[in-house]
């Protein structure tokens, strides 16, 4: 297993890659592949950063260039933003503060692409953690699945769930120690009733966007996620109460297949009152 941490996009990307062939040659091959991916991530950062004045997004925001004058990746991201805005009933909004802020999509998209690049290069067993957004593929070894801890939003040194996933994406949106920084685009106010939302899905972009959107939905987040095919969600509200979609526990270590023991205390299925 090869591990690398790369500071990029205002956070740290961590890579765990199983080198299939073993030995030095294989590590060199992984290293070369990783070098290309890391360089690409820095390119994405430079292109999409809303902080860097000369980024394409910066120039687009100031009206100095049109979308067609930007690189094709910019149109791809803008299309994703539009699509997610419609899908989430406006809860995901890259234009919520008046100007374009696509970074909510860019990181997940970059993680998904990086995972695909590794798989195409023959390294199908890997885990990429981009600032807490995680994309796993294959196995860390011994045929077991990847184990992913979800930090408890109200007790940062504990997990509120431990997942077991061999192929898929895990995204968590939350208030955590930075305070209430997710703004509800529908009323412009900070989200205060939800502490954290974790979404599991096949794809990092959607899991990430759905987690962000669910953050602003409050009590209807779990029923909304329940209706999205192929995705599962886990929501902790500000009082520490956890709700989850019906299939979430299938990916949960120690809970899966342990129906007789019942769910942990203080965890509850969707109650009738929270249904829309």
């Amino acid at each position, binding site marked *: *297993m*090869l*591990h690398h941490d*790369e*500071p*990029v*996009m205002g*956070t*740290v990307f*961590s890579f*765990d890659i199983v080198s299939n062939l073993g030995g030095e040659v294989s*590590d060199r091959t992984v290293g*070369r592949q990783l*070098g*290309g991916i890391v*360089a690409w991530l*820095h390119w994405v*950062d430079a292109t999409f950063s809303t*902080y*860097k004045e000369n980024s394409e997004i910066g120039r687009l925001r100031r009206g100095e260039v049109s979308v067609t004058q930007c690189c094709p990746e910019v149109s791809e991201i803008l299309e994703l933003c539009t699509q997610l805005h419609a899908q989430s009933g406006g809860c995901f909004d890259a234009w919520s503060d008046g100007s374009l802020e696509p970074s*909510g999509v860019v*990181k997940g998209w970059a993680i998904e692409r990086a995972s695909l690049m590794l798989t195409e290069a023959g390294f199908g067993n890997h*885990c990429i*953690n981009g*600032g*807490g*957004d*995680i994309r796993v593929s294959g196995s*860390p070894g011994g045929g077991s699945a*990847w184990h*992913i*801890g979800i*930090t*408890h939003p*109200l*007790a*940062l*040194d*504990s*997990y*509120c769930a*431990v997942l077991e996933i061999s192929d898929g994406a*895990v995204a*968590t*949106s*939350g208030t*955590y*120690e*930075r305070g209430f920084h*997710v703004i509800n685009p529908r009323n412009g106010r900070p989200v205060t009733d939800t502490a*954290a939302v*974790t979404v599991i899905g096949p794809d990092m972009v959607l899991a990430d966007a759905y*987690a*962000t959107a669910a953050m602003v939905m409050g009590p209807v987040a779990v029923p909304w996620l329940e209706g999205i095919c192929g995705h599962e969600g886990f929501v902790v509200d500000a*009082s*520490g109460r956890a709700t989850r979609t019906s299939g979430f526990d299938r990916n949960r*270590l*120690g809970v899966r297949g342990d129906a007789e023991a019942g769910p*942990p*205390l203080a965890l509850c299925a969707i109650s009738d009152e929270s249904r829309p």
Partner: protein
Amino acid sequence: MRRPLIAIVATIAGLVALLGFKSSGGLKASHQSVSLGPTAAPSSTSPTSTSGSATTVPTTVPVAAAAPTTPPTTAVPANQTYTGNDIPFRFGDIQVAVTIKGGQIANISIPQENSRDPRSASIDSQAVPILTQEALQAQGVNINAVSGATYTSDAFAQSLQSALSNAGR
């Protein structure tokens, strides 16, 4: 308001790139998180992987093109741990220690984390019922990565930067 912050992050990125970046696992979930500055996404989060992960053997990776590199101007002594300043953040103070081995960051840890916000206490008591069972289940399990993180804070970045400055001195 965000620009100075980014300058800090960029400085750290530069320093980290300069020193090479290699982290070994260990410690508790939140305590081995390595997060520099604010996340770009609206989601908070940002730990790096591995908690007590016995299966993860850190390997030196020859990464070709990393962040913007600066030629090293100061020789970095080998095998030393440098501690950053104690920086206040929302729930208390945070202090970051960086261990440098052979010019690379071998480990980043958080020796100092004091809760001083009274809200932390009430938060902790709320969290207990949810977590007891799952935390017990997580014991002895290798966690490969952590979602929904911790020290994405500016405080972490500032303390890390001062630790790296101490290392370069």
